[in-house]
């Protein structure tokens, strides 16, 4: 049911040409995705998806729409080449999936490491929520990398966007 709604939302995002409706539909998509993640018992990820995808991203998209037109312009190229690229990428991904272990197989690293963390976490870190202890402690290096990615993204956006207005106006804010 949720997946059917997800598919319907995706199709409408592609079909609808009013960008305001598209922005709202992507928010709907994020909330549906968050529901799917809750069904899968991944509450932490669902929380992130709902707040980032449906909250911040939608505000940013609406803010962008305020700066531009709200109707999508007609494409000037034929969709053959993008369609070809998309089909090839999809085919490669599906081909690569055949190398994955079967869903729920008992001997995958996931099934071996998961119970190991569950058994060790409370004793070693004193943190009852294993998601937090794995993210911040056992995989602390990865999370440091993620924080650096966000830092880099923020710097990049500031570099791109803060330069624009100062050029055509003489009352640039500087900084």
């Amino acid at each position: 049911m949720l997946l059917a709604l997800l598919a319907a939302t995706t199709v409408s995002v592609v079909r609808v040409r009013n960008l305001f409706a598209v922005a709202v539909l992507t928010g709907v998509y994020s909330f549906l995705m968050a529901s799917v993640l809750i069904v899968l018992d991944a509450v932490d990820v669902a929380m992130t998806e709902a707040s980032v995808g449906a909250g911040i991203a939608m505000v940013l998209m609406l803010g962008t729409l305020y700066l531009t037109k709200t109707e999508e312009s007609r494409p000037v190229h034929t969709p053959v080449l993008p369609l070809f690229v998309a089909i090839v990428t999809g085919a490669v991904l599906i081909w690569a999936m055949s190398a994955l272990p079967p869903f729920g197989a008992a001997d995958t690293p996931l099934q071996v490491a998961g119970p190991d963390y569950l058994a060790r976490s409370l004793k070693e870190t004193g943190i009852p929520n294993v998601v937090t202890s794995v993210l911040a402690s056992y995989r602390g290096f990865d999370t440091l990398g993620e924080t650096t990615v966000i830092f880099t993204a923020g710097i990049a956006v500031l570099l791109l966007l803060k330069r624009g207005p100062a050029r055509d106006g003489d009352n640039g804010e500087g900084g």
Partner: protein
Amino acid sequence: MRLDVILRVTTKLILPLMLLFAIYVQFHGDYGPGGGFQAGVIAAATFILYALIYGLGATQRIIPVAVIETMIPLGVLIYAGVGVYALLSGGNFLDYSRLSHEAAHGQELGVFLVEVGVFVTVSATMLAIFYAFAGRGRR
């Protein structure tokens, strides 16, 4: 701008609750779902809501751009600083057990500090991106 009384009053009512929820998600991340990233986004959303209703200028008087631009690298520095401190005190990089006399307590302290670092960077970055977008629309 003066006709949106309901929006303004409702916003004033839910803003403290949103900030409180962000703090709850931050500090309760050890026990329930959430952590620095989610809390940072919720805190940023609080200020973005304030900016949407009361205007960008009012928000930038509360949190100036200079503060935001200091917070973005500060969070990464807090995180990496915890790692370097563990390194200097004889452990591996990001080995929180070195932060305290007892290993488990050091782990809790380390995770807490690291989550604070994530919170600072994430909330500041989200707000900085919003400022950048909204600041262009004003002209």
